[in-house]
Each structure stands twice: as C-alpha cells, then as structure tokens.
C-alpha cells in the first residue's frame, strides 16, 4: 500500500463530488487502443525517438504491444516514465499519432496502480511538482514576493494585460539568475504598455508539469479552475508569458478543459508580443554597444513552442524573422544542425528522469550550439536551466552564453512610442 496513492484517492474522492469525471473525460481516454488503432507500424517513430539514442526505448514496439493486447504489461513495466515527451515522433508519424499524449494518459494509469510511484525519479527531490500540488489545495494562501519587480515598472492587480510569471521566483533559489528572465520580460512589457501591467501576488502554477510529467490530473484540473478564477478577477483580456510550457498549457490544454477560455483571454508568448509590436512599428532593434564585432548566435527551439503547437503556429518563424533582422545591429543568427521541429531535446521533461542519459542529450545539443555561435537563445526557462547546468560541467562549453529570449532582447529593444509615465532605466 502506497501512502501517496492513499492521499490521491482521497483527493479524487473530493473531486468526484465536484463532477470530476466530466473534466477527466476531456483529458483522459481509458482505452489506449482507441488512440492507436490507426498506427501503420512503420516504426518511423522509433527511428527519430531522441531518448532511444541513449537508452533502449522504442515507441513503435510499445504501440504494437498495446495494440496486441499487452497494455497491462506496458503499464506494469513502468517503461513509459522514461519517455522524454519531446514529440519528435509526432513530427514524423504519417498517421499523426500523438505518442506524448498517449504516454501522458498511460502515466495516469500507471500512477493509479498502487505499486508504481515516479516520485523518486523526479529531479530535485520533487520539490517543484510538490509546490504545484500544494498550490492546487483549497486552503493554501499563496503570497509571492514581488521584490524582484524592477523599479521602473508599474504593476497592479487589475488591468488589461497580465504578465504570467510562472515558476521563476521559485527556481531562483536553486538556479541562480532565473529571475532575470522575469525582470527582462516585465521591463519590455512595461515599456510598451500605457497602463500598469498585472502581476499577481497570489499567482499559482499553470499545472503543466503535473499534467505531463507526473500525471496528477486531479491537481491539474484544480489549478486550471483556480487560475481562471484569478485571471477573471483581474479583468485582463491578454495574458503574456515568457514560458514555453505555460504558453502551451494556456493555449491548448486549458481550452480543452474549458471551451470558453479562448474567448475570454488572448494568450501570447513574449515572442509573439514583441513580434506584433515590431510589426506595428512600436519597436525597433538597436545595439547599445558601439562595437563593430559581429556576434554569431543561435536559437534552441523548445519542444513546447515547436512540436507541441498546432502546425499553423507562427512562433517558429516569427522568432527567426526577428533574429534575422538583428544582423544589421551586429548579431548574426545561425541555425544549429537540428532546428525548428527537428530540434534536439534539452533532455528532461517536467522534472522527470534527470540522469546521465539526459545529460548526454544536453551534451549533444551544446556541441551543435558551439559549432555555430557564442550565444544560444531559448524561450523556455527550463531548457535554459538544463543546458546551463551541463555547461557548468565542461570547460569547452564556457564560450557559449545561454540566454532566454527576453534576456537577450531587453537591451536591444528601442521603443518608438515610449510610454511617458515610465522612466527610462
């Protein structure tokens, strides 16, 4: 008997009283075969699977076994905790089988089994998913420090535009400089907005990691409900985030649960936000340094902003359009060998399975980065953190600076129509 399962049972019981099943049905399909029937068994997925390059893991075999009626064996073997959920397989699947989503569902099934517990393989002692879970509790009073907010920024708890910060203030304790992403992003937004930007003192987790990594759907649903309530209270219509995971969650997964989410809120990644302002002519790019040295840089696409968005998403191209434009100010954008939808994974998904194999994936990624540039930009705080972690271990990567998109751009942005109420830094 597993005590964690016990606690979850009681949680589920509570949710059941609260039409839990109607929500669960939207994000959970009990019969995996239903989702897999269209599989050709061409095994392309196994060929592109990123984790399979460093350990034994073959999506096609797993699918085949499930289809042949060995679902229980797969569930019991716990092999699906190993999937990176990077969605590389989906890019190459001729039948559009969403393997990551199947893993997510299977993980829920695995978790409900008494003996299976992924908690010990959650990196950093599971503290971050635990914090997310705690935030999903009813009686939790959240109060986040807001002392990181730059002096030049005016924020409020009501307003039209909300900056959703995400986990960055929590990361900052263990992973230095995480907050500089938040500072940079907020600085950019505040310079462009006339009215104060909403930053919530009681902001809670979006639930991404519980949804994908630990398959704690009960807590995820709770978090979604609480978040939507909070967003509504602010009066905001636009939510901007600098996090690839929060973005995907608000863009795709919340609307799956609550159809009207899309109508109520426009969700923008900071890339889109800047791109739009640039196109509207409100932003230009300018190099504050007078140096004529040309800096080669590259971009690491996070899976949540490439393979985890609908095919028609424009972020991949928008970010490149911005980057290519930087050539005139001395920044020369170069692609890594694997880019866009084929981008290599940072090696960890939702805190699961950090080990020497995921380290090997990061190592490969930095080899590619080193070949083309001295700066590596990404737009997912976790990718930045994971790649920086590896960089520290190897002297030969010390020449590469790994930055978030906002950190990179904050000093290169020139506002054409400056907001008069905000002082220049």
């Amino acid at each position, binding site marked *: 008997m597993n*005590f964690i399962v*016990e606690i979850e049972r009681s949680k589920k019981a509570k949710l059941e009283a609260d039409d839990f099943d109607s929500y669960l049905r939207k994000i959970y399909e009990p019969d995996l075969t239903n989702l897999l029937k269209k599989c050709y068994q061409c095994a392309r997925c196994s060929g592109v699977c990123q984790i399979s390059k460093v350990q034994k893991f073959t999506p096609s075999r797993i699918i085949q076994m499930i289809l042949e009626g060995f679902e229980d064996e797969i569930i019991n073997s716990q092999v699906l905790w190993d999937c990176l959920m990077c969605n590389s397989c989906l890019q190459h699947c001729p039948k559009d089988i969403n393997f990551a989503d199947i893993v997510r569902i299977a993980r829920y099934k695995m978790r409900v089994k008494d003996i299976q517990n992924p908690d010990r*393989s959650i990196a950093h002692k599971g503290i971050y998913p635990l914090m997310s879970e705690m935030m999903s509790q009813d009686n939790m009073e959240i109060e986040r420090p807001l002392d990181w907010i730059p002096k030049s920024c005016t924020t409020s708890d009501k307003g039209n535009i909300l900056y959703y910060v995400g986990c960055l203030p929590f990361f900052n304790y263990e992973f230095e400089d995480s907050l500089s992403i938040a500072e940079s992003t907020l600085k950019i937004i505040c310079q462009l907005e006339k009215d104060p930007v909403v930053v919530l003192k009681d902001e809670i987790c979006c639930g991404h990691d519980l949804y994908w990594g630990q398959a704690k759907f009960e807590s995820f649903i709770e978090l979604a409900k609480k978040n939507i309530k909070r967003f509504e209270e602010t009066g905001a219509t636009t939510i901007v985030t600098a996090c690839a995971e929060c973005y995907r969650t608000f863009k795709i997964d919340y609307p799956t649960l609550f159809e009207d989410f899309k109508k109520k809120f426009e969700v923008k990644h900071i890339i889109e936000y800047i791109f739009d302002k640039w196109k509207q002519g409100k932003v230009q790019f300018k190099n504050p340094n007078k140096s004529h040295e040309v800096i080669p840089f590259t971009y690491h696409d996070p899976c949540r902003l490439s393979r985890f968005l609908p095919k028609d998403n424009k972020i991949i191209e928008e970010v490149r359009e911005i980057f290519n434009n930087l050539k005139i100010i001395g920044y020369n954008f170069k692609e890594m060998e694997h880019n866009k939808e084929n981008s290599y994974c940072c090696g960890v998904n939702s805190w699961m399975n950090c080990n*020497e194999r995921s380290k*090997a994936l990061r190592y490969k990624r930095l080899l590619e980065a080193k070949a083309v540039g001295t700066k590596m930009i990404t737009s997912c705080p976790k990718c930045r953190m994971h790649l920086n*972690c590896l960089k520290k271990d190897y002297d030969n990567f010390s020449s590469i600076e790994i930055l978030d998109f906002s950190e990179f751009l904050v000093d290169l942005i020139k506002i054409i129509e400056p907001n008069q109420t905000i002082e220049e830094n």
Partner: protein
Amino acid sequence: MEKIGAVLVIGGGIAGIQSSIDLADSGYKIYLAESTTSIGGVMSQLDKTFPTNDCAICILAPKLVETGRHENIDILINSSIEKIEGEPGNFKVDLIQRTLRLDQNKCTGCGLCAQQCPIEAIDFFNEKLSNKAAISVKFPQAVPLVFSIDKDKCIGCGICKGICKAKAIDYELQNKEINLNVGAVVLAIGFDEYDPTPLKQFGYGKYLNVITSIEFERILSASGPHSGLIIRPSDGIIPKKIAFLNCIGSRDRKQGNNYCSSVCCMYTTKEAVIAKEHMNIIDPTIFTMDIRAYGKDFDKYIERAKDEYGIRYIRRRISSIKEIPDSKNLKVYYETGKGKIIEEIFNLVVLSVGMQPNQKAKELAQKLNIQLNEYGFCKTDTFTPVETSRPGIYVCGAFATPKDIPETVIEASAAAGCVNVLLSEARNKLVTKKELPEELDVSDQPPRIGVFICHCGINIGGVVDVPNVVEYVKTLPDVVYAEHNLYTCSADTQTNIKEKIEKNQLNRVIVASCTPRTHEALFQATIREVGLNKYLFEMVNIRDQCSWVHMHEPEKATAKSKDLLRMSVAKASQLIPLQEQEIAVIDKGLIIGGGVSGMSAALNLASQGYDVYLIEKEDSLGGIARNLYRTLENDNIQEYLKNLIKNIENNQLIQVFKNAQINSISGYIGNFSTNVSYGNNNKSADLDHGIIVVATGAKEYQPKEYNFGQDPRIITQTQFEKDLFTTDKVKGLKSIVMVQCVGSRNEDHPYCSRICCSEAIKNALKAKEINPNIEIVILYRDIRTYGFKEKYYNLARDKKVIFVRFDETKPPELKIKNKQVKIIVNNPDLGKIEINPDLIVLSTGLVAPIKENEELAKMLKVPLNEDKFFLEAHVKLRPIDFATDGIYLCGSAHSPKDLRESIAQSNGAAAQAVKILSAEKLVTSGLVAVVIEENCIGCGSCVEVCQFNAIELIEKERTFEDFSMRTMKSHINPALCKGCGTCGAQCPNSTIIIKHFGFEQINAMISALLVQS
C-alpha cells in the same frame, strides 16, 4: 617482568573517559575507576561550553555511551585506590568498591525505585540546589545507568526492595575488594572547585544571593533545579543585574591560591552570554583583572560577548559585598577609571571560583608514591607533560594544571600515547575476540520477523499494555513470532532470543524497548551470534517515545507503541543483509613538520615499532624551537632539542626528508599515498602510509609596526632572547620597553598568540638576572600568564619590572627625535606616559603560514579556521582529529601554543594514529551511502556537503549509440562514509541511497503509519 596489556585509569571525568577510549581502541584492557556512581565528571554538570556554546551533556553523552558499551572497558564506579605495588609495565593494584546497596549487574536503571522512595536526599549533582530520592541515579544520562542508595538518608523502609522487579536491591551488600594487575596507571582525578566560604568579605553562605559559578551553571541548565529558568535563591525573582566576580580564590597570594585557574575568564563570559540568551532582560557585568582569552578563537568569543550581547567588563576586583537587608540585593564598591569610588547594586552576584587540587590528591599521592608540586597538583615537567614522578604512572587533565576541556582531552590522549609506548609489546594480549558462526544466507527467504517487546520492569509495562501490543504485533504481516520480556536486555533474554530465532527460523528481529543509542549494539551482537546478519535488526524506542512522554495517557501510549511497531515491521520486511568491508592498513605514519611537535609524534610512533616518514620543508629539524633557549620555568630548550634531534636521526624506523615538499596526497584512512620531492637534488619519492599527522607549526609574525627593521634598537622577543642567552649586550643597557600584542589581537590577527606574555616575562626576568639595575617596562593589554605561569608574572613584579596597560584603541606610539627613541603609552587610568628606552622589544605573535597551510589543507581536504590555522573536527572534544578519518593535528598548526602543550598534543596525535596503525584491518560500517551511478549527473553537490571527505568525483567515459562523452560520477568511499545521509538529502536526482534508510524502507514505514491511522 612481563608487561601487562591492561591499564587502570583513575577518574571518570572527560580526561579519564578519553584516555580509556583511546587505549581501549588500541588493544588494551581498561579499568576505569570512578569515585562517584557515574562517569562524566564536572563536564556533565556544565550547561554549555565555550567558545561554541555547544550543550555540554549533548556532546559528552555519546562519549559516555561509547565508554559504557566498549567491550574493552570495565567501569568500576564508587571505587577508590587502596594500594599499588610493582613497576612500570606490571603493577598490582588494590581497590575498594563501596557498596551501592544494590546489585549493579541486575539494576536496569528503570527508575521505579526512585519514584516510590519516600525519603528526600540532597542532589549533589545540582550543587545542593535541589533534592532527589534517597535511592537515585547521579544524573539522567549517567553511565552506567544504575541506582544507588544514599546510606545516610535511607531509612530501610524496604519499599524500593519490594517494588524492584529486577530484584537488584540488597541492603546487606558489602564493600568489595578488587585486585587488578595492570601495566600502567593514568591519573585523571580532576580538581575541586574553590570553596569561597572562608572569604568572609563576599558573604558566600551568608548572603542568599551570592552563589558560585558552578551553582550558576546548574541554574542555567535545562536539567538543573529550575529547568533553565534563571531565578535567584532569596525570592525566586529573575535577577536583572548580575555581577560576576572573577579570580575568586585564584591569583591571590593572601587568601586562596597563587596561580591562575586558566578557565574562569572564559566560563564567566559563557555564563554571562548564556544568561543573556536565556533572558534578554538580564544585564551581566564581569569584574575582572585581565581577560585571559588565550585559547583558540577565545578572543573572538569575548568580542562577541561585548558587541553582540552587551556584556560589560569592568577591570576591577571587588573587595567586598554588602547585602541590603530588605531587598537582599547586593552592593559592591569599585573604583572607576577616573579614580572615583562608586557603588553599584546587583540582584545576584556570581563568584567565579577557581580550581584547586582534588581533596583526595594528597592521600592518593601518598598511596601511589608520586610527587605533588608546590600548589598540590601533580608534579610534571615541561618536556614530559603527562608523566608523574613515578615511571609507569601518567597524569592528565586538571590534576596536572588547571585547564579547560580541549586541553584536558589533548592531555588524556597524550597520556594514552605514553602508555602505548610503555606497553606496546603487550597490546592485544588481554582483549578477547569473539568467534562467530558463518553468516546465514537469508536473501531469498521471505521475511520471517520476530518481535521482542520489553516491559523494562514497569518502566514501559507500567504505562504501555505490553501483552496487548504483543497480540497486536502477531497480526501484522510477516511477523511469525512475538513475545514480551521483563527485561529484553538481560543476559538470559539474549539466550532466549537466540533460541527463538533458531526455533522459528526468524530472519528479521525487532526489539521494542529503550533507545538504540545504548542498546542496539547489544541486540545486533546477539542475533549475529546465531548467524543472522546484524543489519537484519530493527529497534523501536517505546520507552522514551511512548511510556515516558505519555506516562499519564496509558491508552495513547499503547496505541502509539502499536503504530511504531507497525512501522518497524513494515521496514523490517524491507531490510536486506548488509556487508561490512575490511580494509587493510599500511602500518606506517607520515608526519608533516619536523619541529618539536612532529618529532615528538614521530618518536612516539617509532618507539612502538611503526615506520615513520618525517617531512621537513627546511634543511634542518627543530622548527621554531631552534630560536628558543629557555622556557619560562627555566628548562633548557636547546639541550632538549639536541637530544630530540639525535633520537630522531638515530632511529632506524624514522626516515627524515629534509628540504622536502609535498606534491600530492591521495588515498584514505589506512591507505594514503604521498609524493614528496626532497633534498638538494630534488629527488622524488612515493610514500605509502596509513595515517597523517599535521605538525606544520606556525611562524613568528614579522612586524610592520614600530619601524621594525629600520632601527637596530627596535627588535623582536626572539632576537632579544638570542642576545640575552648568547651575548652580554644587556649589560650595557639602562632601560628596555617591551610592547605586547604586536600584530596580535588586531583586525589582521584577531586572536591571542598565547605565548607572548610568558616570553616577555621570561626575557624580562633573564635581563634582570644579568643586569639587576636595568629598568624594564612591559606595555600590555592583558597579561595572560595562565595556570602556574602566574608565578613568574608575580616574580617579575617582585623584581620591579613595570607593567603599564594600554587600550586596544590607543596602542603605544613610537617617536624618534634627535636619534632618541621615545615611546608614548596611553594608560586608561593614568593618561599619557613617555618613556625613553635604549631598546624596544616587540612581542610578536605567531601567525599561520597562510600559503603553505592553504596548499596543504587543499591536498588533505581539511578545513582551516578564519586565521588559517588548521581546524579540528570539534573544538571541544576532538581537538586532535580532523573530521576526515586518519588525519591528525598537533602543535601550533592547531593554534599557537607553548612547548609543553605542543609535546602533549603530539603524543595525543600519536595515540589517535596508533588506533589505526595497530589495527590489522579496518572494518567499514554496512550502513553507508551508495551511488546508483547511471543516474548520477556528476553535479558534485554531494561532494560539497560531505563533511567526512568520503565522496569524490571520478571522470568516466560513457558511450551511447552514436557518440561518447566523458562525465563525472560521484564515488563514495565506504571506509570514510559515516552513513549520515547528508549526501542523500542533497542529491537532486535521489540517486544516492543510504543503506537501510532507502526510499523503500522509509516509504514502507510512512505507508504503514498512514494506512491504519
């Protein structure tokens, strides 16, 4: 005559305990004779210890337990020496063990008798400040935990006898004579506190609110008479203003003792600090002459006391105290800095009493035929600090000189070191090794758990419904047998447990009784005797955690016992046998530093037959002592040094490397490997050895102050000493000024160098001897002639050496005008004084060689303190060891110290080293941390947190399908791992498993707890 491999240690204070453990660990049989009913001594009465404010009993209790359960130590409580005869190596000793009126072997310490005893007796442990039963234990953590009857108070009512389930009480038991045959004797009888009753002017015994420092120590203690609440005796009110009067009975030729008691300045400060910590409204004032904070990091403690706690120091001794009749407050008079006499009223006065010889010292000295010194302490010599006048009998601790705990521990080890030299041929002759059956392989058997639940008389059984718990336990999964015992720890129960294991084919055993701290090893040994791996054992503490804390709620206590047992059963079913590894030991020592300390340690080891490599960076041995001629006590240092060097160079087992430099050190306890380059031709050698002693010393501070080096009339004490002892320059001088604390106790070197006051006084006395008309002025901040050195301070004053105090903030100024040197000193009481001396002698302190120490510390992976001296494992109780096993520390590398102290510490270091060198092999614990390598990402956070240096990162090649990379992996050395679990808690990937405290085991326990509740 044949040498006997047994040692009698007299006195069970911290000194006796340390000597006993050191010798017992080195293969000798130890008899530890203690005059009271428990070991622990004065340290067990202390509340906290300076300068770390560690709780005294918390750090002492583990040592008590270790002594109590050491298989080579027999503790003889309540005993005293009657007679000794024989010669070094073979003594016959008669002791008398006074009756406890109960059978020590039967008493389990359950304490029921004391609860029922109708008679109150005085609690001497609490300094008579409270009462206890006439049948009692000395203090709760007493070792051995046996009760005894106060024969003066006992009325023989028989209640205790009737109630004792163990049938231990026997009023008729008589004193017992014990005859021992031992090879050596160590005296550690400690000291007595000075009794201030004769000093009528302080009114001790007459005024209720005048108490002694040891009484105040008990009042401060959480286990003291008022549970740590500071209240004064007259009315139980919190004393807001407390005055501490230093030097009560010390530094007083007329009334009391001539010497300095060495510890009072520090313990007074500690008591003031702790009082302030307990209750912030308390405002302590310390009246003192000099503040003698001469030990390692002591000055920093005083500064903190002043700055952080606002403790007020007034440099005056109080001549008398008057009680105000109504309020019982106390009025003291003293002179202010401006010469005005003022009175101040205090609510409580604490007399900081000094140390005086143990009242039994004289009688013991006669029986043992050893000499005492002029003060009644044991007579010793500078170069043989732990030897008494009778060969084969050694001394340590406060019986030799008043001293604090770390120095006592150092001397205790030193005494062990000297016994080692005397008795090394008899090592391991009297200790027996148990023959054990081969271990049964139970790894593929399903768990068959046996549970033994203890009533502990009625200590547990009186509260917890033990039979009910037994019935409950029988229903738990995997439990195949359960029973209850009156005393699970008794000898007959051990036999019973073994029978039940065999009969029921048990493969996991649980005992639910008292604390594993004292009893786990016993039960583990029991199950091992029938072939079970000793780690297939779990212990549940239903005494402390159930019957004691819930003594008035028997139902809850029973329910909790069931919960704890259910958890324990869940864990036991997850236990696996753990293997202990055996590590071979290279029985050679490496000693770094060829000064007096290093040479003493080398000689000690070599005289026991161990090979020693002695590393000296310079081209000759002797270190800083080469510049010294005489000690303060007038011992001839040069002659001693000459002999010592001769002994080293003539010893076949000692290989000296001069002009040597250490390039690298690798390995671990028992198996180090060191590369040195040495000699003029820079030859290189790889040395394999089992231990390392760091004896790198300190160097003299080269002053930047006072135009040093630019004027021949301004020299250091070392230069002056050379002139004094090798020339007659001093005959031509009229006046000398000595300036103390040059380069010490300032911002750059915020510590006291300890030796400079004595050096200055030594040289002043010598100068006066050569030229009696010379005028000598010593400018000082505090004169720190601690212990018996005080005699020479007095002598210097008698010889008309002038002492002028200056304040830290206004150091003496030097002026050179018309080629005349002039020194201006600002005395806090008198103002500016101008002196025109012929010679200025600067008393410069000792400083650590920063660069060398940092390099060596890095190679050894051991820490340095803020002042770049080496930092020991624990400043109070482990002053010779590093946290890393197998590396030891002695001499001024630890902190500045004089020759006597350095020699003691080096013998102590040798004693620690011999514990390893004399072992055929080291056995690692099975309870260690292990890394699951494939999940390790080599982040190194485990390396950072391991205080035992057990973890290192090793580079490994990893090959994957299409590429390979080099990556770091954590590696834990089981020989160094203590299984503390810090690394496991730190590892971000949970890839370090602490054996027996792994995820499965802890999870099983928590699950078991939650499932039912």
